[in-house]
């Protein structure tokens, strides 16, 4: 019993620290990839390939003056970045980074915990995380921030529904909300006329995957759904008035969210740690990197939606598709057509 708890703590500690390190290098990765898209070089001055850039950024942000606007709601203004930042990495707690291994005679699970409602837990964290944005925008006492907060509230409420419902198809197929269970379900390969294909849900649930992807980008406030912080309209939206490390809390939370959502998507749709050879955490990392690259690619290419178009897309286009997907999956499952 205690053995299990200790291994959870150790794995959790490692995951949290690796995640924070990865997040720092996610900013480097984004800068480099975006620069390549845009005919630039990106950071080159700080260490080889600009690899020390995240450290330089951190030092710079730490040494900035911490400004609290005179007409801000002081307490909420100070708490808001913490809400975003603290909640962001918690989603990684339920991602399986591997199955159980035996180490020094102890049985170690390579995940922090295996919740039976893991998927719901991740979705719930996303909904709570947005409070940081809403409260921060409201408490800044700036009208741009307020508009950013309003947009964020509306956007998250709409896309949360799509995000949650797009996963229902996966839950129907796997029969479980536990991410470990979902990964195990996906690792049994199917054979189609002698051809061995993995039972990844991206193959059996392509529509759900596409919808999840769109909703996930909106959920993490990334381009082309970056309306809450649209810098050319709202200057910085909810974080206009934040400076120094309070600003960087929001910034870091955004990147951690991206990583967690990428891990989540890889686990749900791409088989997570399951790979053609030598299952392990490396497969998860490769898959997550593909998603992260996709995020940057979107940002380099697409213009931004307008607020009303964004809501129209969620409710008029994505929502009917989500229900269609659920109905189809349910019917197929009910009548047991095909291998799935």
């Amino acid at each position, binding site marked *: 019993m205690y053995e299990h708890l200790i291994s959870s703590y150790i794995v959790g500690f490692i995951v949290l620290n690796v995640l924070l390190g990865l997040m720092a290098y996610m900013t480097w990765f984004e800068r480099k990839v*975006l620069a390549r898209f845009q005919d630039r070089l990106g950071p080159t001055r700080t260490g080889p390939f600009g690899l020390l850039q995240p450290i330089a950024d951190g030092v710079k942000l730490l040494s900035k003056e911490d400004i609290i606007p005179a007409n801000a709601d002081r307490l909420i203004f100070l708490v808001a970045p913490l809400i975003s930042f603290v909640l962001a990495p918690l989603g990684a707690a339920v991602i399986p980074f591997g199955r159980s291994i035996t180490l020094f005679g102890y049985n170690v699970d390579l995940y922090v915990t295996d919740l039976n409602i893991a998927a719901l837990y991740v979705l719930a964290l996303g909904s709570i995380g947005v409070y940081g944005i809403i409260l921060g925008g409201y408490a800044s006492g700036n009208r741009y921030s307020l508009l950013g907060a309003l947009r964020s509230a509306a956007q998250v409420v709409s896309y949360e529904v799509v995000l949650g419902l797009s996963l229902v198809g996966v839950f129907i197929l796997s029969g479980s909300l536990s991410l470990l269970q979902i990964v195990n379900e996906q690792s049994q390969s199917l054979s189609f006329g002698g051809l061995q294909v993995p039972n990844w849900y991206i193959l059996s649930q392509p529509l759900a995957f596409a919808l999840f992807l769109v909703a996930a980008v909106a959920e993490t406030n990334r381009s082309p759904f970056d309306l809450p912080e649209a*810098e050319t*309209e709202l200057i910085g939206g909810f974080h206009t008035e934040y400076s120094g490390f309070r600003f960087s809390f929001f910034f870091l939370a955004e990147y951690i969210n991206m990583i967690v959502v990428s891990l989540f998507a890889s686990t749900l749709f791409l088989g997570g740690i399951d790979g053609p050879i030598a299952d392990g955490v490396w497969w998860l990392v490769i898959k997550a990197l593909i998603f992260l690259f996709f995020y940057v690619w979107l940002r380099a290419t697409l213009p931004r939606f307008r607020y*009303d178009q964004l809501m129209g897309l969620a409710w008029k286009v994505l929502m009917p598709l989500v229900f269609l997907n659920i109905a189809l999956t349910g019917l197929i499952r009910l009548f047991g057509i095909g291998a799935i």
Partner: protein
Amino acid sequence: MVIDFSQPTPVEISEERQLSASRREMVLNMGPQHPSTHGVLRVLLTLDGEVITSCDPNIGYLHRGVEKLGESHRYSQFVPWTDRTDYVAAPSNNLGYVLAVEKLCGIEAPERAQYWRIIMGELARIASHLVWLGTHALDIGALSISLYCFRERELILDIFEKFCGARLTTNMMEIGGFSRPIPPELPEMVRTFCKVFPGGQRDYELILSENPIWLSRTRGIGVIEPEVAISYGLTGACLRGSGINYDVRKAQPYLLYDRLDFEVPLGSHGDVFDRYLVRMEEMRQAIKIIEQCIDQVPTDGDLMLHGSPYTIPPHDTVLTTAEDMQRHFIWVIKGFSPPKGEVYSAIEHSKGELGHYIVSDGSPMPYRMRLRTPDFVNLQSLPYMAQGAMLADVVAMIGTIDIVLGSVDR
């Protein structure tokens, strides 16, 4: 006066305006420091949610009194000031001004200089449109376009730099022609640019022209009906986007534009997207004009009108003959005195009709200098377009008017 920095500086929104907005509405002060007002434009918006109920552009934050400066400088000294009005298309401003003075003096530049003026003017038009496209796309959220645009603009600036040593404030043209020789490699550089540019333009169009998000952000947004466009006095792409065929190069041809074959693109809906299409096509037509000019331009010949009392004598005769040396001395120290009279001369600038109105009292300085800058006039249409639009659309509308605050405020 001691300024107390411990107190927040109140945003200047008058009590009256605050009260006139109903309880549902919110007054939003956009600018003068705002990333997408293209400089120091200030727009006071009244918002109901995100819908604009009133829009009030305030200008004057970059006012330097350029017109008054024109009245206290000798004619040739004002050319560098024209660079600083619309600083993204400096050669076009130079051209508008020197043509006005030449019209006042009744002189004309030699043919070779006229061809090169067209080439430089059209290159400036492309450079200006590239800055417009880059910033406009950036405002709407397409991040990479701006860098692609600046990649091609760099080639144009290299050409300017080769010719006159400056990239932005070129001070390129002189009354009566050019005071500098054309570097021998310049025609080749221009030809190379004409070959390279269409490929770059294809890049922008591939990303934007059929992109559903771009279309939904620009189609049917900021519609200006033809009669409204005329009543506001709009010119340039803002007018032609509404389908009215008025281009100074065709309506009142100046330089050698009547010899050249080019088309004036027209829009049909008068929305942001049509103005985008018009400007994209204008860049293509500009390349066509440059290619014709570079083929037709004589390889040698005078670049400056000689023997006129209004132009600077050539460098070699200044050093060898007494008369030219004296004339050069007088021209530089005292300036020249054009005949009494008044003149209005307009060119098709990248942003619309750029007019210079000069009143001369026969002294070496103009009695009155007036600049009719196109974006100042075009900016009037912003409140009309913004009525009932959303906050994000205002940003697209400011972009589509294509303003440069140096030129609006002068």
